[in-house]
């Protein structure tokens, strides 16, 4: 078992920022909708509008980040392994079967996640933003293209809110299906995720391949040598780490201690919290 740095700092900030904003928007939104009565209508409207603007700013940053870091590729839907992933949730999970989709820094989402998040980002959130803006600026129509009624806008906005709430419930549950109940949550908080050795090896291999490919053009002559050397170095380092970790792995222990102890031998140093 290893820990791999999976979620970068901005990614986590974006995720948790989104979390707060969506929760705020859901709470205040259903107050505005007339479903609940917690904070008062005026406060609900104010918070909803401010959260909406903050969210839109966050979206702009997130889009920029996804484009500049190529991270958007994670969200391209794929049907590869989708059946396996479904089988895992329906059957395998009850029998300690391994996760069918390995998490890697190059592909950290399983096909179901890809599809869901893709729909979320490309369909639901943009529809929410568009209907939200129409809602806000309904009173300022451009001459000639005035909307007849708020109803369609409001009904779409409400329906997507229900979809998002449904997503939230399932999402909250599925994060408990990692190695341990809290390992996915911890990964999104700290960035480090616990993984099987096999998974880690793959990651390293991939990383080496990536690195190797990038090194190639610089050192044309020692091309293959350089590649292999790096590969060997990494694998050796990995083995050493494995041994160290094996010694320190506290079998039978769960939760934070386990994770905490695993953090220390990582080659990448990490600040104590």
């Amino acid at each position, binding site marked *: 078992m290893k820990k791999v740095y999976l979620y970068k700092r901005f990614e986590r900030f974006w995720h948790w920022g989104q979390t707060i904003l969506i929760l705020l928007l859901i709470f205040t939104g259903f107050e505005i909708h007339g479903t609940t009565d917690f904070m008062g209508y*005026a406060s609900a409207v104010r918070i909803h509008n401010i959260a909406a603007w903050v969210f839109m700013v966050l979206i702009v940053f997130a889009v920029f980040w996804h484009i500049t870091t190529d991270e958007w590729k994670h969200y391209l839907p794929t049907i590869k392994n989708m059946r396996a992933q479904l089988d895992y949730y329906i059957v395998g999970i009850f029998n300690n079967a391994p996760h069918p989709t390995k998490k890697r820094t190059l592909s950290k989402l399983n096909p179901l996640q890809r599809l869901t998040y893709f729909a979320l980002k490309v369909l639901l959130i943009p529809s929410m933003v568009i209907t939200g803006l129409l809602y806000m600026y309904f*009173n300022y129509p451009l001459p000639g293209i*005035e909307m007849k009624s708020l109803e369609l806008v409001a009904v779409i906005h409400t329906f997507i809110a*229900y979809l998002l709430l449904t997503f939230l*419930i399932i999402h909250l549950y599925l994060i408990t299906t990692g190695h341990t109940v809290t390992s996915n949550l911890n990964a999104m908080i*700290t960035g480090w995720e616990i993984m099987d050795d096999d998974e880690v090896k793959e990651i390293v291999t991939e990383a080496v391949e990536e690195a190797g490919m990038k090194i190639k053009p610089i050192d044309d002559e020692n091309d293959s040598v350089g590649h292999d050397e790096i590969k060997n170095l990494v694998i050796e380092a990995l083995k050493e780490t494995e041994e160290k970790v094996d010694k320190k792995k506290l079998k039978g222990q769960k939760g934070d201690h386990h994770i905490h102890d695993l953090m220390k031998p990582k080659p990448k140093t990490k600040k104590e919290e």
Partner: protein
Amino acid sequence: MKKYITTLLLVFLSTWLLAYGNGDSPQDSIDSFPILNYILKADRNTNPSVDHSKFDILHQTFDSAQQVTAACLSCHTERDKEIMTTSHWLWQREEKIEGKGVVPLGKRNILNNFCIGTMGSEATCTRCHIGYGWKDKYFDFNEPTNIDCLVCHDNTGSYKKGKGMAGLPDPSVDLNFVSQNVGSPTKENCGVCHFWGGGGNNVKHGELDIAMLDCSPEVDVHMTTEGEDMSCVDCHVTDKHQMSGKVYALSSENKDRATCVYCHTDKPHKDNILNDHNARVACQTCHIPVYAKANATKMIWDWSTAGRLDDHGHSMHENDADGNHNYLSIKGNFVYDDHVIPEYFWFNGIAGHQLIEDKIDTIPVQMNSLSGSYLDKGLNMKSSAPSKIWPVKVHRGKQIYDTENMTLIQPKLWAPNKGEGAYWKDFDWDKASRIGMEYVGLPYSGSYDFVETEMYWPLNHQVSPASESLQCIDCHTRPNGRLAGLTDFYLPGRDFNPFVETAGISLILASLIGVGFHMFCRMVFKGNCKISEEK
């Protein structure tokens, strides 16, 4: 870990504070919101520019009220011409009514569901006319000395018109004293007619009440003697005797309005969402949450029960528990109410009217109708602005009509003596109708009955302090909100699509059940499920 939680909490809190720190506080003083076109009480110079008691002409012995007018006009030489074009003088103005063209319209010829109409009973009704001697339809509207300057300009409070004297002053009035103490109209001057319309204090409008001469801010935040103590003409700004603003109930065209935004601007709130509301919600809707705050107003008037006399054959009256009339032999049954919650309608400032010659085509008869709907906006706009939601007093009545001709009847109500056919003296509907309709030159078939009527009075006065204005939740709420009756548009917080609600709640329930079941299985099998192993 702690660091992250702290950061999250900070973001959460700051959003919350930002949201709360941005609102309009009810404790805002008059300095904290924009005011235009108005001089504060503290900054006003109330010293008169002229002392009328120094003019010899006003020391003469006046034999008649007309001589006073002549004296006024000897200095204010052109003022009569101004007066003679006003609706205060003519009791009518040219208004374009939808489908009926341009019609002279006013108290002179319109019917309402209070005292029905002035025609035939002028000598008593014109106690509220700014003239002398309008006792019948042959009154000379071109005679300058028929103008009553004093009823509006008396600053002594001692001037009053006599009962049934066609607008002439009561013999007790000291014309020298009054004419030497004239000035800009005070609220007493306007109130003597506008408070008492419909035959009693606050009867007609429901928000024009003698109590407003000296009231608390809760009754009227503008006119309160504890505050700015504003007079009517501070809002009904007047130039050349043309007063801005006209009663909405009797004005077909949306023009010459006295408006809130004239002083308050169209962005009076700090909160933009509140300012935006003004696109479709009149200021009055939130700021006049109830009317008839000091004294009751008449809500229902049923003429059909009139004529019941006491054992001696005399006219009588009965009161309700609050001391308001609920029966008068001359007028029938009434229902009064105070602290009334308005009814709400879309209104674009354009009104229709049931003219005296119009056939009855709806029951209840709509004495006037407020034009407007949700869709009256943008390119569909009928007026200069979209329809807005207005608070309205609806006065419901039951009054006499001609069952053959299907028209409303103008009965003769008042005469100085018995035997002249006036209903209030002789209690004979048939005779009063015959004489009344003959007077206006319209047919009367001889058969009459009583028909239900409705008249709409958009509310404008008795504005409440900001702290008592309507809150979001008064309208944006599921059951029994203020706007429950206005169903032609989608109102957030009130409306929802039943299909979307059902689908949404089903989705959430399904996901909860699915997740719960999945979790249950995981806990039961703890990774040792035989069935899934086989598979």
